[in-house]
């Protein structure tokens, strides 16, 4: 029974990643895209770990997740700075 759980978990995470990516694409406002991108990052990090349960995978998922958080942080703070300069 428990062996089947990763399959459902992978399916839910993967579908969430695609849904969040589509929402991000169809949202017009750049800053309001970022929460959807954040959901996609969570889901993709989850899928990476669920597919490859290996000690190095934790470092991979962590690097992906933290790197993408840093990117969204950079996008948002750049927009904030540009508006401040105007």
């Amino acid at each position, binding site marked *: *029974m428990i062996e089947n759980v990763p399959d*459902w978990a992978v399916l839910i995470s993967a579908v969430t990643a695609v849904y969040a990516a589509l929402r991000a694409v169809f949202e017009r406002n750049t800053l309001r895209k970022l929460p959807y991108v*954040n*959901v996609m990052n*969570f889901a993709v990090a989850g899928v990476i770990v669920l597919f490859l349960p290996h000690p190095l995978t*934790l470092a991979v998922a962590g690097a992906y997740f*933290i790197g993408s*958080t840093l990117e969204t*942080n950079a996008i*948002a703070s750049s927009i904030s700075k540009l508006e401040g300069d105007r």
Partner: protein
Amino acid sequence: MIPELAYITIAAAITLTLFVVLDIIWKLPKEGGVSGADVISREIAAAGGDRHGGWMMGNIVTSPDASAGTLLAACGYYIGDHVCSIGILGGAAAAVLVFTGARICADKGYVGTSGTFAATAVIWALATFANFPPASFIAGMVIAILIVQGSSHILASRAIGNLWRKVQ
């Protein structure tokens, strides 16, 4: 016999409660921690959402907070459990990752690190005593963050803002 989806649904409810409570304890809806969180909050408020809820959503987006801590704790616990049957080791490794990541994102790192430890403890307790599979917490956390960040910005920010004003 609890079916797999029930485990994931219960895990989603538990992780959602855990990270919202921790974020509110650490006062994430009070203000934007970095300038990026502030502009995200302003855009959400401009679309008809709540400023305080927007600040919390902006803070979640721009630096690893308790929600990121919960996700990486679940990932670490799953891998630790799979590799050497000691999930807590993976949770500890995840705490190091979250703290480093928060420091890189110009955050103090207390929210994410405390979230990782709290989530590791909760997952350990439920996996040991209630027979929850650790993978259900990864999917549960993905559903929880989808509810807060990916469903409706207006409704989610209003709900968080109301919760914040009640707690204050």
